[in-house]
């Protein structure tokens, strides 16, 4: 039988068109800069990213084992978001295997199954929804074709279930069919099964990584080891912008267990027989650094101001600017958010082994390809000679969207000629974080006589998120002119308002700022949704009604309206104080996922206490309701933590604080006792899940505190702001 040629799938065609389109827009951007940039911003606000790896060959995705199981080499990394489970459900349904028969592993870069971009932005499930089902269906058909061929029957006569193929009296397993086949017949992409026939998609199956995570199985980057491995410790400066000059290592050299000092042009490290010995010896190294300036919080605050830096209009409808200029009744307010740390529990590090012109790196990373390329570049070896083996991540949240330490640790391994394990300590992790940038927001509005909004404008000033980031394609920055990460969530979602406008001001800070779960979503939603609450109060309207009356009449609008109405109903929303508790409402739309939240808050001994959160979210098709609920519960509580307590500051050139505790985060005692999640599915495909529910929480809490105390908290962290207003 001749080998059929696999068709170029629809999906690949679409990817090419999208890239081609961007290329054409480069020319346009310089001619019609403002409208084009606005159009691009609107597009970027709603577009769901395509999967960026290859989807040509099912055999690099699925490996059949002799036990009749399928090993799924997953190019997306598991960092808690449940992507291994969700993708396994999607694959299993088209593969016709049970969940027990599918084992998900991280695809090593050398396996050939390489995501060209990253795991992040709540895009894994939505971008792989179609390609993965097609790959799995193709794999299933490949096995069926081979079985049919060996039995001399037509493929249509076969029935398949749980990895077993049957036709009449014949019966065989996927494993038996696959044995010895080197030349598969690849059919054109098969028709996908109807939704109603799926057994796992849409069901709350337990996480595939549940047992290892409850029994302490070594699955994380920091658990990795190689034979004959040594332990390294790199000296990091505590100062912002410090450049390594030189180091006196004489005292460290004679410390117990020390094997070698490795001095490179950009860092110095000690290598020892144990991690503890390396850490102790590291403290004996006297490194000299060059810094330009000792930065302080005041310097940073002066930079993050609407009006400073470079503005780009990202949204415009009607004549908001002109109406606001000509009005004597402008309502306006300013909001602020602080520098935020990722504070993920597993610090960054890696185990690297360089042998000649080959390198292996085991690492927790969200960017496998970029890490591979950086290691190859530093060592001056070919990319294909570098194998990045990703592990489970002890938290991602955007912190591992650039992992340049992989190349440093590879350089140490090369210098000592052995495998080396090297990790940041906690203090270094806090001071060398790629922080959530601080923001300043200026909101202005004019109300009509009926109390609804005539014109609304949001200005946001933020440090960089996507600008200059390793994963942002180089052309995007000059084309957009603004930081699409910083203004995520910064557009006006109530498009029934006749005139509205959003402007993003870009500021480059002296320390690294980057992706933090939801990007600008939490800060922007805090500002806009607090302001909406202020406007409703001035207009003497119920805050929920006030919003519902200003939503546009289209699909996006209907989905937003629905989550708001269901939330109000579920939580029995009222804008009056009952038994010392008040409710606060807020909503956001992130990518295409609308989410509404209502919190119940009281103040106890001066502390803001969130008792209950009702959350209604519409991410479209839900693959695993239990895990989508888990993402909502986690995002809400992480958002509560950031909104109420978290804050980094800058003092004498150092980012502070450097420890859990002083960097106050929500603990068990601060977490809401009740989180009631309702999921709606008003779309024909799965959308973003991991970040959208982090949007409304900050504003919802601030709005509740206002109802409760009459104090308007316009600066996060809210607990500190409440205390400063009470003094």
């Amino acid at each position: 039988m001749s080998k059929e040629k696999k068709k170029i799938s629809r999906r690949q065609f679409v990817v090419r068109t999208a890239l081609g389109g961007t290329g054409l827009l480069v020319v346009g951007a310089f001619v019609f800069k403002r409208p084009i940039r606005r159009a691009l911003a609107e597009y970027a606000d709603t577009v769901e990213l395509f999967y960026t790896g290859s989807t040509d060959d099912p055999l690099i995705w699925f490996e059949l084992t002799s036990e009749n199981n399928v090993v799924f080499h997953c190019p997306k990394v598991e960092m808690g978001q449940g992507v291994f489970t969700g993708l396994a459900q999607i694959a299993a349904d088209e593969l016709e295997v049970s969940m027990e028969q599918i084992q998900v592993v991280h695809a090593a870069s050398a396996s050939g199954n390489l995501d060209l971009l990253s795991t992040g932005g709540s895009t894994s499930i939505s971008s792989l929804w179609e390609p993965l089902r097609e790959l799995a269906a193709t794999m299933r058909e490949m096995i069926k074709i081979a079985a049919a061929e060996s039995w001399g029957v037509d493929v249509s006569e076969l029935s398949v279930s749980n990895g077993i193929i049957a036709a009449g009296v014949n019966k065989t397993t996927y494993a038996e069919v696959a044995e010895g086949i080197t030349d598969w017949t690849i059919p054109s992409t098969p028709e996908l099964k109807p939704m109603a026939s799926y057994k796992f998609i849409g069901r709350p199956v337990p996480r595939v990584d549940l047992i290892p995570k409850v029994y302490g199985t070594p699955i994380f980057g920091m658990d990795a080891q190689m034979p004959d491995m040594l332990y390294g410790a790199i000296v990091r400066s505590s100062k912002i912008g410090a450049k390594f000059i030189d180091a006196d290592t004489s005292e460290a050299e004679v410390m117990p267990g020390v094997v070698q000092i490795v001095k490179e042009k950009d860092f110095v490290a000690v290598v020892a027989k144990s991690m503890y010995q390396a850490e102790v010896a590291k403290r004996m190294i006297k490194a000299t650094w060059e810094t330009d300036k000792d930065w302080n919080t005041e310097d940073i605050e002066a930079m993050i101001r609407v009006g400073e830096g470079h503005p780009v209009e990202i949204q415009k409808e009607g004549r908001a600017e002109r109406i606001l200029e000509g009005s004597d009744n402008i309502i306006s307010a300013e909001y602020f958010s602080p520098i935020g740390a990722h504070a993920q529990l597993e610090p960054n590090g890696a185990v690297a082994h360089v042998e000649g012109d080959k390198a292996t790196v085991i690492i927790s990373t969200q960017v496998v390809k970029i890490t591979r390329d950086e290691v190859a570049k530093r060592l001056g070896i070919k990319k294909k000679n570098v194998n990045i083996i990703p592990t489970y991540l002890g938290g991602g949240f955007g912190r591992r969207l650039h992992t340049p330490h992989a190349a440093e640790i590879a350089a140490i391994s090369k210098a000592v000629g052995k495998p080396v394990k090297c990790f940041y300590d906690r203090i270094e992790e806090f001071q060398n974080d790629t922080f959530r940038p601080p923001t300043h927001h200026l909101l202005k509005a004019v109300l009509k006589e009926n109390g609804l909004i005539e014109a609304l404008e949001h200005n946001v000033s933020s440090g960089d998120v996507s600008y200059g980031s390793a994963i942002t394609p180089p052309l995007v920055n000059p084309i957009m002119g603004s930081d699409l990460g910083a203004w995520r969530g910064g557009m006006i979602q109530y498009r029934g308002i006749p005139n509205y406008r959003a402007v993003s001001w870009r500021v480059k800070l002296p320390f690294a700022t980057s992706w933090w779960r939801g990007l600008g979503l939490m800060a922007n939603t805090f500002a806009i949704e607090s302001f909406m609450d202020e406007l409703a109060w001035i207009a003497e309207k119920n805050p929920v009604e006030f919003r519902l009356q200003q939503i546009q009449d289209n699909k996006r609008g209907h989905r937003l309206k629905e989550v708001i109405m269901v939330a109000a109903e579920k939580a029995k929303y009222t804008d009056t104080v009952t038994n010392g508790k008040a409710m606060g409402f807020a909503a956001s739309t992130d990518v295409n996922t609308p989410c509404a939240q209502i919190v119940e808050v009281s103040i106890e001994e001066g502390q803001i206490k969130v008792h209950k959160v009702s959350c209604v979210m519409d991410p479209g098709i839900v693959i695993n309701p239990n895990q989508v609920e888990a993402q909502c519960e986690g995002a809400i509580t992480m958002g509560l933590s950031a909104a109420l307590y978290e804050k980094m500051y800058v003092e004498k050139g150092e980012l502070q604080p450097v420890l859990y505790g002083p960097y106050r985060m929500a603990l068990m005692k601060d977490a809401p006792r009740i989180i009631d999640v309702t999921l709606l599915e008003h779309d024909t495909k799965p959308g973003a899940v991991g970040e959208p529910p982090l949007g409304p929480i900050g504003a919802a809490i601030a709005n509740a505190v206002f109802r409760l105390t009459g104090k308007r908290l316009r600066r996060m962290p809210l607990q500190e702001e409440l205390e400063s207003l009470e003094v």
Partner: protein
Amino acid sequence: MSINLSVNNQPYSIDIEDEQTPLLWVIRDLLNLKGTKYGCGLSSCGSCTILVDGEAIRSCSFPVSYAAGKNIITIEGLGSLEKPHPVQQAWIEEIVPQCGYCQPGFIMATAGLLIKNPTPTDEQIDEEITNVCRCATYYRMRKAIHRAAEIGLEQNKEGQLDE
């Protein structure tokens, strides 16, 4: 120096140059039990929580010499796949973990709490469970802690009936 340890009911004799070495690194790198995690090294996050003579301690700040002759239980020794510890059973039922990195620490801290107080109230949980979870799985953890208490009581009852 040589130190005798009992870890998960196994005797170990280890040679160590620095008796101030935190127990965490002995467990992880000498005994190769990687379930106990490094989070901060300064006793502030609880990722490294283990049981020493039935009491939950943070092993990153616990010199190995203090552990000599004591009964140490780590996540690997808490329960087995066949017979999960009530806390592990409850964690599985409630599908608690997300990234999972801090979870062994929370599970051990909870096991320690239930030894002292088999049926903790919400307020006691708030006071006693002070570890850090960045995925913020606290909502499910609280449910799982109450469920673990229930399972513990059920097992106790069955144990008494057996006798």
